[in-house]
């Protein structure tokens, strides 16, 4: 997974996004390795165009799409969905327009902090929001992450 390049192309391309999931946990001190990049993106038309454009060179394709079926990667495709689980030349990237427990991009952005990482200044979910999202997602892997995140949150409480 080339997460650094992925974040840099999104940032340099002017895409409005928030890093969520495992990489936001890492930025807050989690020691758990993750092999994908989860981001929440704004569904504003101009943002969909930018997102489609900057990722196109990395050949995004839906992971659950059977081999041989055509897949068109453009702003229209992005407009017609809210979750895109992608394989790309940079690795696995999951794009979400909404996050369980938090809501739309604007709500996710309100629960994020500006962080210097990957050579850029980027938005990442804050710890409290990340815990809320993991709890709402409720999958086994999300629940497994909670004890560590809750310890980090408690340790950093004033």
């Amino acid at each position, binding site marked *: *997974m080339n*997460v650094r390049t992925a974040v840099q192309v999104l940032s340099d391309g002017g895409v409005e996004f928030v890093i969520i999931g495992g990489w936001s946990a*890492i930025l807050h001190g989690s*020691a758990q*390795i993750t*092999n994908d990049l989860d981001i929440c993106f704004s569904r504003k038309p101009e943002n969909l165009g930018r997102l489609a454009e900057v990722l196109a060179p990395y050949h995004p394709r839906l992971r659950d799409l059977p081999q041989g079926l055509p897949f068109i990667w453009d702003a229209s495709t992005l407009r017609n969905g809210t979750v895109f689980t992608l394989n790309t030349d940079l690795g696995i990237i999951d794009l979400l327009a909404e996050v369980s427990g938090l809501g739309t991009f604007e709500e996710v952005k309100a629960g994020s902090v500006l962080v*210097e990482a*990957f050579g850029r200044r980027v938005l990442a979910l804050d710890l409290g929001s990340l815990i809320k999202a993991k709890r709402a997602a409720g999958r086994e892997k999300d629940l497994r992450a909670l004890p*560590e995140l809750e*310890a980090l949150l408690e340790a950093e409480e004033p």
Partner: protein
Amino acid sequence: MTPEEFDRVAGRLRNPAPGSRIEAAQKYGIDLTLLISQLRLTPEERARELEEAAQIADEVRGAARRRRQ
């Protein structure tokens, strides 16, 4: 995080208060010393360290697959 904030945070992780969420994490199996090591770093350094770890994990997974073939 200032050095003073780090000392306070690391102190809580080194000596979890009884009944705290930190103690619960320790009992769950979370290595709190790893968290202290990560918190000592800037977010940029944390990302870099875990990128390298993820890359090594990918290489090891690939090697194991190749060995099976």
